[in-house]
């Protein structure tokens, strides 16, 4: 479980995140949604410690992450897997080396064990026989899958995904969403996904946090999203005709 308390962040005097508190539950796919520029990614980076919040605290299973010393932070971060928007694969390393990287740095597994684990993770995300390929030789969807494989290779307790289906076709987006959901259920991890894709919201959103202009305006489930009574959320959700027809039903 991840708990955030009163997180605020400003850049050059401009407030991007205003006093956000929430709890992301273990074993659930928690979604942070909102339009572009509402501070979703900034909030995610505050949670994983890539950006230090101006105020507020992040707790990982009761452990204060924000005010922890560097060693403690590194310790908690080793329990984190993260899928970045562009995959963030290391250009100079092959797919296998990318997935194996956390094992090389963070574990003392034997080479054979590492290979087995890498192959297991690649198979889990539906990739086989791509071990020797370089990131530049694979498609965007495959990069995302490799990113997921790298994120889960060290058995994380927390999985973060920043816009996992940006730049992907609808079919691949659904596959990535399903994969994230399956992995969350299978390993019982706490997953936080930042997205503005309503297909993801309706597909995998178990708990949804809606941000508007850096403020938390609503939280609930995907079933409750249609009856939120929040105008800004309605404007965000029902922008396309498919969603409008769903609302009418």
């Amino acid at each position: 479980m991840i708990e955030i308390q009163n997180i605020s962040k400003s850049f050059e005097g401009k407030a991007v995140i205003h006093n956000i508190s929430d709890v992301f539950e273990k074993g659930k796919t928690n979604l942070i949604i909102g339009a572009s520029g509402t501070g979703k990614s900034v909030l995610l980076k505050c949670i994983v410690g890539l950006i230090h919040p101006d105020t507020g605290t992040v707790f990982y299973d009761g452990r204060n992450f924000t005010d922890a010393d560097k060693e403690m932070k590194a310790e908690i971060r080793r329990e984190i897997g993260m899928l970045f928007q562009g995959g963030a694969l290391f250009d100079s390393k092959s797919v296998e080396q990318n997935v194996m990287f956390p094992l090389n740095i963070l574990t003392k597994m034997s080479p054979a064990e590492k290979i087995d684990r890498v192959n297991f993770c690649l198979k889990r995300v539906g990739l086989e026989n791509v071990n020797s390929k370089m990131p530049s030789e694979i498609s965007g969807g495959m990069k995302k899958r490799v990113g997921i494989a790298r994120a889960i290779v060290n058995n994380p307790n927390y999985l973060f995904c920043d816009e996992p289906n940006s730049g992907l076709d609808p079919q691949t987006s659904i596959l990535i969403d399903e994969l994230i959901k399956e992995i969350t259920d299978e390993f019982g991890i706490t997953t936080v996904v930042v997205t503005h894709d309503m297909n993801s919201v309706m597909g995998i959103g178990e708990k949804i946090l809606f941000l508007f202009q850096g403020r938390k305006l609503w939280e609930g489930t995907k079933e409750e999203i249609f009856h939120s009574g929040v105008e800004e959320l309605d404007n965000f959700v029902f922008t396309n005709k498919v969603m409008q027809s769903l609302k009418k039903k």
Partner: protein
Amino acid sequence: MKGFGRYMIFLGSLFVRRESLGTYYTLVLEECIIVGVKSIFLFALVSTFVGAVTTVQTAYNLVSPLVPKYIISNVVREMTILELAPTIMALIFAGKVGSSMSGNLGTMRITEQIDALEVMGINSASYLVLPKVIASILMYPMLVILSGVCALVGGFLVGTVTGIISPTDYIYGLRFSFNEYTVTFALIKSLVFGLLISSISCFKGYYTKGGAFEVGVASTAAVTTSVMAVLIADYLLAQLLL
């Protein structure tokens, strides 16, 4: 001053939360190949021609029958050891290796690869930068030695083939009034320059913000700042050590 302060903090961050020595051993070896081995051809080529041109130009300026011919190679030797090999080659090093380091780290920054390392609990500065700095400190003095040898050989070839100076005079001039300390001085300079170029270039690349355009800007800034730092350090070292 703010930038200098950030640079010093950056240097300090290279030595905290380091990974295992085994990890660095492999990384340093890889960087030595990139920084050193892959620079050999360029350094040899440039320094050979610089040595050759220095010989021709020195001979052109020493036309007096009262000045013995071996002074030509004597001048070439002093110029090569004191300035051409360590300092001029540092400018080449900044252009080739420094810009590459900066571009590499800048690209890693904007494509979130550095963030990925941080999220894994790895000190990205130490993991990415320290091997480059160590490799530069190790390899640049070797490249300077190579450059010095190539420049003197280049001077010898051009001087003897064109008849500017006889082989005997050239060798005699190289050995005449030789002060070994100049080599020590050149090597001290090369250690400092290797550190300055690699750390400044990495600093510029590591803190790149924006996109592809900013990566190019960072690479340019890495080279210009490194060159300025090298020239200032060159003057200070000459004042202090000569």
